């Protein structure tokens, strides 16, 4: 069976069109039958083609009569409520495709802004060439992420509280002196370069835990390009 994408337009080539007609007609009738059997429902199909004066029908002339009679017995409104022709059917499909496209674009935008955020985090500074729109999007995304992070933190801390307390190894492992105080200068320039080593980070984190989240001491960005999972892990994995 060929799997080439077929252009959705009248097939101009006569023999090609006839071949397609035969195959697709067969497939269509098969599908009607499957639908009827699988779902235990009444169905019928009537097909007029230039190749045959008599229409092709499913399931049989008698079956078609029966289903059409059932159809025609219904009130007019019930008959036309879910009735479509090419025009209305295609319009429905177009609307659906538009919606899907809009959603996909939105998702992709969000993914891109997320990447932007991660890049800012890794680089330790705000990248240049960001428009106000990008900045706004970034802030929005950060807020969304903070919501999720906080929610997750709550879940985990609840879990921890229901378990016996284990002292985190990194807090007790020898804390080295802080070698270098990292300069965080907000006033001039946004080049926040932090090359800290592990001990410093642990120290900072210990301080963070002890002080309950000290604001200005907190060092924002990590230059961890060459470091991977430097937090010896605890109990939450």
């Amino acid at each position, binding site marked *: 069976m060929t799997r080439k994408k077929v252009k959705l337009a009248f097939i101009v080539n006569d023999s090609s069109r006839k071949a397609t007609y035969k195959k697709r007609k067969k497939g269509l009738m098969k599908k*009607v039958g499957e639908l009827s059997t699988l779902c235990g429902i009444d169905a019928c199909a009537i097909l007029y083609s230039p190749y045959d004066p008599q229409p092709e029908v499913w399931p049989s002339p008698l079956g078609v009569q029966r289903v059409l009679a059932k159809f025609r017995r219904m009130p007019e409104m019930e008959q036309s409520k879910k009735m479509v022709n*090419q025009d209305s059917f295609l319009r429905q499909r177009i609307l659906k495709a538009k919606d899907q496209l809009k959603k996909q674009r939105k998702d992709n935008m969000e993914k891109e802004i997320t990447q932007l955020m991660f890049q800012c985090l890794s680089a330790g500074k705000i990248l240049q060439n960001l*428009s106000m729109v990008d900045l706004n999007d970034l802030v929005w995304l950060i807020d969304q992420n903070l919501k999720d992070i906080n929610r997750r933190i709550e879940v985990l801390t609840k879990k921890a509280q229901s378990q016996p307390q284990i002292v985190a190894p990194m807090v007790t492992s020898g804390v080295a002196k802080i070698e270098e105080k990292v300069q965080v200068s907000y006033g001039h320039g946004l080049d926040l370069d932090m090359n800290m080593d592990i001990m410093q980070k642990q120290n900072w984190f210990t301080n963070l835990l002890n002080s309950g989240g000290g604001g200005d001491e907190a060092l924002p960005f990590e230059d961890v390009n060459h470091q991977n999972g430097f937090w010896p892990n605890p109990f939450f994995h």
Partner: protein
Amino acid sequence: MSKKKSSLGRQKIPIEKIPKKSHLQVTFSKRRSGLFKKASELCTLCGVEIAIVVFSPADKAFSFGHPEVESIIDRYLSRNPPPECSAHQLVEAHRNANVRDLNMQLTQLLNHLEVEKKRGEELDHVRKARQRQFWWESPIDELGLHELLQLKVSIEDLKKNLGKHASKIMMEQSNMSSQIVAANGLGRFDAFETKPGAGMNIASTLPNNAYYLGFRHAYL
């Protein structure tokens, strides 16, 4: 990380009545839609006329017809050949032209959708690769408590910086526009009035390149 499939994919099922009611309903919905789609394609590709009538499990009637369900049913039941008058043919021609346009529009949309889907997959792929290097890019649900705390601090700080960055830009902008008024008598221009969703390079809105260089120097 466990792989989560959004659906089971195409699975072979026996052609007999589906036992579970909910499954049956879903199957009806999907297959009815697919059936009409196939019928629509057959009409477009091969220029045939068709009517399909199906009853849902709840006995609602769904029908698809080209040109119209009613006319096909009437034609079949009365065994009358279709009218061949020129007026009728003109109507047909218009109708077909309209369907052609709709098909083109639909095809275009589906192509765009395909492109965006691929873009989404690429973005996912990049992020997955980065996750090996940067732990904070992993999904939040996979991070441990202290990782979360650390990430939270970092992000909050980034947010603070962004706010400051933004205020600086706005200050620069108002300084700049007053300079421009002085320089060439033009009114204030709003560099940041962009169309929603259009990320615009600041540089491109500044008329004076030399000024932009100066601006950059202040912040690098």
